[in-house]
């Protein structure tokens, strides 16, 4: 039986990790909600953002958080272009399947370019406050992990407000719920879908920066992330942002706690076990209803 201290520490680590998963899964589930696109390249963009943050710190000497000022608008723009120029051209009948192929190719291109530009060497941002931490009831919280979690919370919060309180958010949700009806009431669904895609990719920019603060990055790291993220959005209910966030917190926590008895290698399987269980017993996901009733 693990000691209380270790348990508390693992819960804290799990929640901090879950926050990051939640942010990343939110973007991924958004793409699916908007246009039934399975975006394999989401985590490749995540690593790209992490590399840009690393590059800013290493070559320009600025704090990685400042790279957000550039990467968030850049990724938003890239997302809009990606949707308008490539994904919207796929035929509706085969959209989901073809989007897997298309975004798989994009992921490979990003990975290749990262390897070409920065080599396969593992990189880590070297921060003065990298090993700083503070105590909480005997457990310790690393400053960098807390910053990453904070970024995730702020980004998810803004996303939530944007979806619920702005007319763009209403239009986006209408587009997700019923594109035809949305068009009937005068929403330019094509344009909204483009912006929605940009929004999804912007979460990858924030997530990548958060990720780069406390882990090693290398070009092929995105394959390590896409599996768990896909599992999270299925468990959360495809297309549901709150569902993805809840599933992410739960699975992140589960992974962290399972590492105590099972070790690092086997704890990773929690995502896939959850995925199988979801598909077997509740294919629509545990945290959302039918896709049309999300949000």
């Amino acid at each position, binding site marked *: 039986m*693990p*000691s209380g*201290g*270790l348990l508390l*520490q*693992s819960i804290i*680590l799990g929640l*901090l*990790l879950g926050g990051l998963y939640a942010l990343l899964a939110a973007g991924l589930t958004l793409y699916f909600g908007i246009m039934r696109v399975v975006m394999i390249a989401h985590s490749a963009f995540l690593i790209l953002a992490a590399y840009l943050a690393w590059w800013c710190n290493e070559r320009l000497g600025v704090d990685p958080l400042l790279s957000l000022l550039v990467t968030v608008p850049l990724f938003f723009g890239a997302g809009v272009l990606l949707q308008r120029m490539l994904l919207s051209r796929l035929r509706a009948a085969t959209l989901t399947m073809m989007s897997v192929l298309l975004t798989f190719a994009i992921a490979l291109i990003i990975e290749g370019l990262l390897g070409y530009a920065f*080599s*396969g*060497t*593992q990189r*880590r941002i*070297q*921060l*003065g406050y*990298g*090993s*700083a*931490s503070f105590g909480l009831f005997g457990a*310790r919280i*690393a400053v*960098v*992990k807390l910053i990453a979690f904070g970024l995730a919370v702020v980004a998810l919060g803004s996303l939530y407000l944007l979806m619920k309180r702005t007319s763009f958010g209403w239009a986006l949700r209408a587009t997700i719920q019923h594109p035809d009806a949305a068009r009937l009431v005068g929403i330019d669904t094509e344009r909204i879908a483009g912006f929605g895609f940009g929004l999804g990719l912007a979460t990858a920019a924030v997530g990548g920066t958060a990720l780069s603060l*406390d*882990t*090693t*990055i290398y070009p092929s*790291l995105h394959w*390590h992330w896409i599996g768990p993220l896909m599992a999270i959005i299925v468990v959360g209910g495809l297309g549901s942002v709150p569902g993805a966030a809840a599933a992410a917190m739960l699975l992140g926590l589960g992974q*962290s706690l399972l*590492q*105590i008895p099972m*070790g*690092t*290698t086997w*704890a*990773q399987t929690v995502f896939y076990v959850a995925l199988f269980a979801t598909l077997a017993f509740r294919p629509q996901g545990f945290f959302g209803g039918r896709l049309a009733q999300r949000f």
Partner: protein
Amino acid sequence: MPSIFRRTHWATALGATFLLTLGACSGGGDGGESADDPITVGISLPLTGDFSEPGKGVQQGYEAWAKIVNDRGGLLGRQVELKILDDQSSADRVVADYEQLIGSDQVDLVVGPFSTRLVVPAGRVASEYGMLFVEPAGAANEVFTQGFKNLFYAAPAVAQDHYNHLATYILALPADQRPKTVAYAAMDDPFAQGTAYGLKAKLEAGGIKTVVDEVYPPNTTDFGSIAAKIAASKADMVVGGSQYQDGVNLIVALQQLRYQPKMAAFSTAPTEPEFAKAIGNKTEGILSPTGYSQDAPYPSNKEFVEKYTAQFGKAPEEDQANAYTTGQVVEAAVTAAGCAEQGECQQKMIDWVHANKVETVVGPLTWDATGKPQGAHMIQQWIGGEIKIVLPDATKEAALLYPKPAW
């Protein structure tokens, strides 16, 4: 993959034909080798792919060796010429490469590639042709269980023996000062895990308790949970079977949790030049085994560091030194045998290396029948912002700090 097999067969057939032709030629008394022909050394290296970075380091080590030997007037009065092929870090390619080098290119000598994964198939080809095969990398146990009689690992010790000096030091401490509990975390990799488990076996036999024994996959980037387990165990000592980045990540994660062991030992990472900066200079007291130190007081090492630095503009690291050591072993064998060509000469060199001690930049080396070196690694420690040799006593630059200061 039929094309590769076919290519290999062709290469074998071609090589055999060449050998026969050569045999016929020399039988006719019309010897092809003249005294001023260069000695060609065939090497296949992973210059692209997974192992490209260490591969390039090994290449520089070989190039430095060839240059130093040639500046000195060559081997047996003949210049040394390297023939280097790129195996793209692939085990199939490495076999084809050595077939080509030995069979069709008719090199006089071969030396090994980088990494266990490539050394084993390459060693098999060299063994089939009866060639002396000295290799700079391939420290895992499986290299020495293949029954090779021609293979020699040109480094002080295999992974399991890296920490031998430290184990002896710890077990020699008075019982009340010894660390009582140890936490181990090792990458799931034969080399990295081998170093940690070698020490673990010795300490457990000495009665020191293992309280954490974690193995993590090579792609692990988040060490928070592993560090939490180690910190919660309050082990007196932590041992990391690490490569580079995982070691850095684990140390940072431990420091985030304010874990302060009495002794901390990590393989590979602490000896890398960027290590101190990577962990924010909180290096105090970290121990690491090393097969090579630029400051080691072996006679040929001073020459190597000087000339290498002049040639490449920076001091050599372990990969370069291991390649250079490989060259030194081959050089000694060639000089002793008085010949460097395929055929009987190879067996003469193999027998000589089995029976003799070779002085190298990593110290004097001897091997057992399987080609396993019979030494142990030096132990270095970070003291006052510098990494210094602390064990064994014969080569030490400073006394080992125990218990270690806070990091």
